């Protein structure tokens, strides 16, 4: 079984969010980048499939050279080969077009991406790839088992979950639940050494243009200080919620 895991290179969850170039670009100064958490759950699930069912794992990223440490980390966790499509990931459409085009030439049985990246939150890359290539797609995927070319998956729905069955090839948008946070792997020294020897191939982008552009970023208005209500005066809290905030 050949697995492709799509890796987004995103600011760490605790990063301060600032913008530069007249608020048109994210300020990367001093920011630590990581594998998008939703992708990392998928990569870890792929590792289980590799270890138990002899799958091979390629990881792919659309990005410039700065994503290479993130791809090396994926190799150190256990992926076999990394591919970087050498282009600025301008929007989800552009990224999905690039990856779909790559898959057309290099078919996979299972394609795993995150349900969304935690930076631009586009929530479209796996779905667009599925649509472009007409491959079955399940997102918000919290469980994935594969046996004899058949997939059983759980999808988180509003207020519960749904169990689906399908067959390969399939594309999923993964999230926590595929594995738990405690299952995530920190690369060990051996993995890091091996990762240096593994192929990290750079390919030039396919000829597509993005279909959106960011005009400007804004940061939320600074918050007003919290209004504290004494715990012996909860009538006041209800009064504020009813008359001031008008949410009751």
């Amino acid at each position, binding site marked *: 079984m050949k697995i492709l895991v799509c890796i987004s290179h995103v600011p760490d969850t605790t990063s301060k969010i600032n913008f530069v170039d007249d608020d048109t670009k994210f300020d990367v100064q001093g920011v630590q980048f990581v594998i998008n958490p939703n992708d990392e759950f998928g990569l870890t699930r792929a590792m289980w499939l590799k270890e138990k069912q002899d799958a091979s794992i390629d990881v792919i990223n659309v990005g410039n050279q700065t994503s290479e440490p993130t791809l090396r980390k994926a190799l150190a966790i256990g992926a076999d080969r990394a591919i970087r499509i050498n282009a600025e990931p301008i929007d989800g459409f552009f990224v999905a077009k690039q990856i779909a085009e790559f898959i057309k030439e290099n078919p996979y049985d299972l394609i795993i991406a995150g349900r969304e990246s935690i930076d631009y*939150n586009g929530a479209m890359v796996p779905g667009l790839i599925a649509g472009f290539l007409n491959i079955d797609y399940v997102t918000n995927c919290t469980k994935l088992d594969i046996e004899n070319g058949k997939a059983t998956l759980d999808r988180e729905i509003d207020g519960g979950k749904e*169990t689906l069955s399908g067959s390969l090839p399939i594309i999923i948008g993964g999230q926590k639940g595929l594995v738990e946070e405690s299952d995530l792997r920190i690369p060990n020294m051996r993995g890091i050494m091996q990762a240096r020897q593994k192929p990290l191939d750079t390919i030039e982008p396919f000829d597509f243009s993005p279909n*959106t552009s960011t005009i400007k970023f*804004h940061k*939320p208005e600074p918050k007003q200080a919290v209004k504290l209500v004494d*715990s012996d005066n909860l009538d006041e809290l209800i009064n504020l919620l009813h008359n001031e905030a008008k949410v*009751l």
Partner: protein
Amino acid sequence: MAVLTYIESSNGKIKKSGFELASYACELAKQTNSSAIAITINCPDTSEIANYGIDKVLKVNSDSLNEFNAKLYSDVISQASTNFDCDRIVLSSSSDSKYLAPLLAAKIDASYLNNVISLPSNLNPFTVRRTAFTNKAFSDTSSSSKNIIIGLSNNSFGLVENSVSLSEEDFQVNLENSNLAVESTEKASGTISIADADIVVSAGRGMKGPENWNLIEDLANTLGAATACSKPVSDMGWRPHSEHVGQTGKPVATNLYIAIGISGAIQHLAGINSSKIKVVINNDPEAPFFKAADYGVVGDAFEVVPKLNEKLKEFNLQNS
């Protein structure tokens, strides 16, 4: 050119989010000098939608659509958008709509803008404000594509009441087969899901154990709210994963979010930031949540929550 909005239903009734979508679609149509059409799938009673300006609804009825299937549902919407020449499609931020949106975008060669919180500030190029960086920032994003799909963030636009008379039209669709089959569905019955709720009562490790969640559930019942929890609580298995809100859990955009015994880690705050009013109840006045909240009570949840519940019951009686 027209605006099409897909209005979701559950148990044969239009979901509440549908009224906000209808309001948005009608205002968008006004702004673009076009008309707004709604489409529903297996929803017998669509009359309420006319209270929010929609005067035409396409009704799709098919047994093959009884269970949600993203591919088939996106086919339905795509056929309607082509037949009625719709270049703007407005979808909700439910899990189902977010699931089908990119499939639809690929099919009709559209730009997909999700987490949208405003009407366009500019029509040429079409520019809307959306949240990004998990609610830590906003992005004014534009698209020059002919077709644009707008994923409207829950509770971000509000309702615009405008009663009109409704014409209903049965819409026939051609459906392919899908390889994906739903084997089973588990849904908590009789409770409100986080995505559909106006009010969410959320609790964290401060509750000390799953056996104390009756306090949270009682308060949620009184408020007609959904219950949610912090990441450690779902990690420890005190509550199901579907209740976990935050950066790696469910995003929450509700009118009122009440956080009980949750310290307010940055990842949690990111997930709930687009809620309008935040109330925190915590015995630690230094908890970071107090910096993110609108109203706060410093106190022991085990004393404050039951007391608040009693007071709210009195409030409900007086206001009913």
